[in-house]
């Protein structure tokens, strides 16, 4: 399946109208589908979209909520893009997000005597460590035994989700807690808010720094260059002496570490413990954003903010109107389906066949 599955992962940027059409197409299709649904249920789509835009971007408070919602998506997009660059279709970030969140939470409610900055560093490191180790396994399977990484990382996602579910319902269940959650992380272990009273935490800053580092890694480091070569043409990269198994291992560990960091940052900054349903699919959203942004830093930032705006607007729109929150799922789902379609090519392909 690799050839078909990885289509669209490594695509060089095309700076022409076709590329722009392709980049905007998913959003256009989603807005049309959403408009049909809204109109069919007796609502004015323009009013609803206007309300959502105001709730997503209108005013400093709303913008901060949007950036807060965009933070985990930006993290998971970077984690995914690292492996996509090397032509590795790693879908395992969703799983390491869970594991990283659990690791961060466990450290945060266990090492309660640690001073604040140290505790935060240890929590984040625990998330990154578990994530890196977790994705080393499918990397080794792929590098040594040619086990398809799409299947192995997909299976590992379900294992990670069930494993953390077991832990939160069993060994780490908060005493006397009715809903399945771990004890709270001590306050010293929370990511500080950068400008109280806004909800925006240090997590967003870390994600931005990571995005900048990703851009540098992508363009300036030998590993980034090797990854790009391997992604564009594995046979050529092998011919010039790039050690593909080692590259796969490095890139997957990096991806897992960032994905784990994403989870622990989310636990430290937003939920302050691990709860059931910790990720509403952040790993998958990040994957869609990485594909849509064609693995570019700017593209991923824009994509993460748009998805973040939808998330934060959807919640308040449901509160203040009779529009079901599910409209957000419809919009995000449709955007994801069409994440990498090529409308621009449709005409040419039809005549070719």
């Amino acid at each position, binding site marked *: 399946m690799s050839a078909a599955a990885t289509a669209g992962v490594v695509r060089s940027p095309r700076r022409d109208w076709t590329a722009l059409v392709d980049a905007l197409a998913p959003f256009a299709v989603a807005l049309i589908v959403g408009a049909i649904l809204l109109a069919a249920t007796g609502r004015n789509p323009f009013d609803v979209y206007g309300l959502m835009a105001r709730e997503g971007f209108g005013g400093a408070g709303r913008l901060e909520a949007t950036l807060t919602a965009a933070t985990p998506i930006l993290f998971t997009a970077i984690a995914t893009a690292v492996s996509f660059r090397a032509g590795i279709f790693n879908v395992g970030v969703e799983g390491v997000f869970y594991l990283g969140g659990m690791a961060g939470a466990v450290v945060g409610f266990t090492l309660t005597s640690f001073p604040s900055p140290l505790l935060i560093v240890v929590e984040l490191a625990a998330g990154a460590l578990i994530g890196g180790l977790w994705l080393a396994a499918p990397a080794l399977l792929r590098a040594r035994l040619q086990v398809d990484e799409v*299947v192995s990382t997909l299976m590992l996602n379900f294992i990670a989700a069930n494993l953390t579910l077991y832990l939160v319902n069993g060994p780490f269940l908060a005493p006397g807690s009715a809903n399945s959650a771990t004890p709270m992380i001590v306050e010293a272990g929370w990511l500080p808010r950068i400008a109280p009273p806004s909800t925006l935490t240090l997590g967003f800053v870390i994600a931005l720094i990571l995005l900048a580092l990703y851009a540098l890694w992508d363009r300036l480091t030998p590993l980034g260059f090797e990854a790009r070569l391997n992604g564009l043409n594995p046979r050529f990269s092998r011919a010039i002496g790039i050690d593909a198994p080692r590259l796969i291992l490095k890139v997957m560990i990096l991806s897992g570490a960032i994905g784990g960091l994403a989870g622990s940052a989310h636990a430290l900054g937003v939920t302050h413990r691990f709860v059931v349903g910790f990720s509403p699919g952040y790993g998958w959203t990040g994957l869609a954003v990485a594909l849509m942004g064609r693995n570019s830093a700017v593209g991923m930032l824009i994509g993460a903010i748009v998805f973040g705006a939808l998330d934060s607007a959807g919640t308040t729109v449901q509160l203040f109107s009779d529009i079901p929150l599910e409209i957000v799922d419809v919009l995000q789902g449709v955007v994801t389906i*069409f994440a990498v379609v090529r409308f621009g090519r449709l005409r040419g392909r039809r005549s070719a066949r």
Partner: protein
Amino acid sequence: MIDYVLAAAALLTTPLLLTAIGGLINRLGGIVNLGLEAMMLTGAYVALAMSSATQSWLVALLAALAAGGAVGLLFSLAVTRLEANEIVAGVGLNVATAGLIGFILKDYYHSSGTIRLPDVVMLPRIVLPGVAQIPIAGAILSGKDPLTWLSWALVPITAFVLSRTRAGLRLRAAGAAREAATALGLRPLAIRDASTIVAGALAGLAGAQLSIGVVGVFSVGMSGGRAFIALAAFYFGRNRPGLTAVGAALFGLFDAIQIYLQGRGVAPELMQMLPYIVVLVVLTAIGVGERKRRLLQGV
């Protein structure tokens, strides 16, 4: 206790087997379909709504089949004609479909997750006189719905069609060698679309078995990741219908044991990990075997 678990396992296997066979056909045609969950959920909702509206389980099944196939076609067109990435498109389809159905539930039924409709006719249970009293065999065979029988009948039929007929050969050609198939005058993309329609239709039936075969209600979380266990079953079966059926039955049995053991000191979450671990073990074992073979051949 054994009879209870086996009877439950037989019923729990049905949606897995139907979906796994569909997924296998789709996979051989060249598409890895992660959107089967959406098609299953659609089938579950449509079956319940149509059973309530017409009081006919047969009409309900046909409607679920058609609805699943239609969602399959939409998904397939996005992948084959617009070159959407099949993996992320499948995931997106699941999110969008669950959202759409959730939207309808809230807006039309004013329910936040589960609906119960009047006059729903459930699938009939076929009791086999004589067999029903035999231990073990009776539990597995008797008192099952028509979809369970259909799912097992499809195993040899699929194996035969795939290996012995023109349609099966063309399907495999479209999946394995698209250019070669085109050169022979076939239309591989159309064949892929057809295989996705079949997969969607079977997943739709699987959904119907969940809603009008077992409980008689519909909820948004009803499919509960079953399509992914079905996916594990056909990866376990390495594209062979017989082995895939073994995988589906094994995972159905795991599920029945897990339900039986709930509240008896075994964590259900650990049992639910088993299908995925089994697939990883199988893939690793195959990888080790092939590596040995390559080393022996000195390649």
